[in-house]
């Protein structure tokens, strides 16, 4: 069926089965392959995107549920990789293999958008659905803290 989507601020019309997960529409139909497949059952978080401003596991979202609603993927998180989290990830050398990091970043970005200065417990709770098989967790924690601090600085300047 024809479904109208809004991905990274752009309108896109797709003709796919209504139950096709948003993940596969993004990857195979819209060629936005930054969103990754890891488990297909919402266990690993590699497929995390923002839907209506909230972090969701796109492998668990039938594309019909995303019709007309704003979707943001890793490709749309910032214009040039300049989101404070992306900068912190590079500075702290967070990625090892890098495969899970799009999902980690999208989950962390959703956290910071509602909780600009999260406690350690809030970071632990928010990031629990994202597996990093390489074990970059210590740097992910530090990256979120650093981005929060940089964000706070930026807000003060404004």
């Amino acid at each position, binding site marked *: 069926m024809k479904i109208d989507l809004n991905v990274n601020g752009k309108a896109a019309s797709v003709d*796919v*089965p209504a139950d*096709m*997960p948003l993940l*596969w529409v993004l*990857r*195979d*139909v819209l*060629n*936005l*392959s*930054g*969103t*990754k*497949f*890891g*488990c*297909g*059952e919402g*266990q*690993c978080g*590699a497929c995390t995107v923002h839907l209506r401003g909230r972090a969701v596991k796109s492998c668990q979202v039938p594309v019909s549920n995303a019709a007309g609603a704003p979707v943001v*993927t*890793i*490709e749309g*998180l910032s214009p*040039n*990789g300049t989101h404070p989290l*992306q900068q912190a*990830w*590079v*500075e702290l*050398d*967070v*990625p*090892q*293999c*890098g*495969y*899970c*990091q*799009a999902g980690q*970043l999208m989950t962390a970005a959703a956290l910071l958008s509602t909780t600009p200065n999260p406690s350690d417990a809030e*970071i*632990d*709770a928010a*990031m*629990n659905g*994202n*597996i*990093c*098989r*390489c*074990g*970059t*967790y*210590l*740097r*992910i*924690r530090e990256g979120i803290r650093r981005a929060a601090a940089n964000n706070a600085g930026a807000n003060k300047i404004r």
Partner: protein
Amino acid sequence: MSPVNLDRRSFLRISALAGGGLMIAAYVDPVTGLFAQGRQGGPPPVPNSFIKIAPDGRVTIIGKNPEIGQGIKTTLPMLIAEELDVPWDTVTVEQGDLDAKYGQQSAGGSTAVPNNYTAMRQIGAGARQLLISTAAAQWNVPESELTTDAGKVLHAASKRSVGYGALAAKALTMPPPDPASVKLKDPKDFKIIGKNTRNVDNAAIVTGKPIFGIDAKLPGMLYGVIHRCPAYGGKATSANLDELKALPGVKQAFLLDPVVPSLSGGVVILADNWWTAQSARARVKAVWDSGAAVANSSEGFAAKAAELAPKFPANATRKDGDAEAAFGTAAKVVEAAYFYPFLSHAGLEPLNATVSVKDGKCEIWAGTQQPSGIPRNVAQATGLQAADVTVHMMRMGGSFGRRLNNDFITEAAKIAQTAGVPVHIQWTREDDMTHDNYRGAGFHFLKGGVDASGKVVAWRNHYIAPTGTNLNQAEFPARFIQNYLLYNSVIDSKVPTGPMRAPGSNGVAFAIQSFIDELALAAGKDPLQFRIDMLSQPLVLPPPPDPNAPAAGGRAGGPGGGAPNPFGGWDPARMKATLELVREKSGWGKTKLPAGTAMGVAFHMSHQGFFSEVAEVSVDAQKRVKVNHVWVAGDIGRQIINPINAQAQIQGSVIEGLSSLMSWEITIKDGAAVQQNFDEYQPVRLRQAPKAIEGFFVASDYNPTGLGEPVLPPILPAVANAIATATGVRVRTLPLSKAGYKWA
């Protein structure tokens, strides 16, 4: 060193880059991956193109090895850039495809650093020497008056300088130097080696660029799945193919007999998009021929191991002294049975391969740890010529040893050939977990004796494992106990096994280092000091030759060489130094810990790396475990090439070890894996990760060796020993969750 000639025996070759600039190639022995100096016979060395210098001075360096998250795409180019003497921020790194011109290309065994540390530096140094010679000729001054800095050749006396890019045209007319004869930098002058250098793909990763195997797309390709016979070695004898082909979006459906021994056959479904192919699997009605593997089960293996335990094979794998007699006179004797299960690699990117077979040529885009095996494997499976197989090496979303076997790529090539269109074969997590080449399960039936002074005087290990693994006769504590007995028994199994991070060590260290703590307890000794005492015993000599141990000071021989190692690589002095370092850093024995909290220690040598680790662990009455702090002390030689990545590898190894300690088990039932996805095979998550994992290194005078693997083995017993100390209860069966433990 052989003299420099100007023909193909030269080790460097220079050529012009299209649009100006310079390409510097080095002759590399395609067999060993090293320079072909003095080598007789065999295929001739071929030139590669490791370095390109553009007229504006920008430098491109090829990363030749597969990248799985170990950081090698950054590490090896760092070595070239250091000796070339260019600023790292002017360097772009490109991933090399599979090509004999790059020499050995593989990711496994923590071998990239020992095999390439000197060779990569020589390539950079040879190129720098060429540029110095060029400037000397251009300015008509002696080479000895020239220096380099930041991509420029400098002449201090005349205050002249010239960028490397500007020398390109003239360099093309110069005789290339022999890189093996060029002096390498003194380590005190290093500007890149030893400095924190970030992963070269970070920017691409954090912005979601298509750099992984799963991201490869070809015009007109179909997306495919393989619905396999669950049992290993099985296949489909028939299926409702016509019904499947009639489904909307499904383009092809056919039976696939096993293409490779490690993967069972099944039904291939190809469709317009992957979701359509995957959805069609629910409609498959296939008749399976399950084969002999259905007799295999984890329960059956355990029963067989228990039956075999007291029945020692006629021939011991190793026998020093007389262990049985020594047990009779020992002051204390301890017996214990240890077990660790099959493990799935569970890299986060499920296996995939994208393949085009057209006009007798096969082109592959895939993540692989061992690309050099692919052309031969594909040729065998398809009848194509190996020379007609091209492999593009994609970044891998983890691998941990799984992609050392190219079975999934070979099979995808066969599917592409059969289908007659390019295909992208994408496994599900369930496919990946149930058709892995598993880390083998193992049973250790151990008996140890200590004398009245607390010294270990006898050790017997009956190692029993399903087909696929055995215990190396030289494994520690062989040579460190006068009366030592090792038996290996095999249980017939069809379960496919293969290397997983720190193969041969990742389970073994748990059993051996846990049992050493049991002996320390029996002896009434501090476990860390007990280990140092064990390592201080006179060694059982002569040491047996270890065919797997690289000769010290050999392939990795750099300036200063390395001290010869008489013990097949196992040097007690190096291990003792790491134990002393971890004792100091962790405050072992000096920190007052609350009830329910304890430290545990363990060590292990693997992949030429010596590691001692201490974990501070809290356990509550509900068996909830928190690993508070981990200290890692290692010796991997005189140079840590990239400290920021070294700490990352240490953190990752520890966390992977914690996953397998607490939660991971693949159970076999009816010749197939029971666990299918992460809900049944939980990796450590962020909130369970220790707050601190600190790595420290002993600066020894050995050649640099790898770090991807040797950190992992000791963490399991270090934590297990801490739990036993904290609770007074020893757990000998992995994972700990089977005994009711869970993360706090």
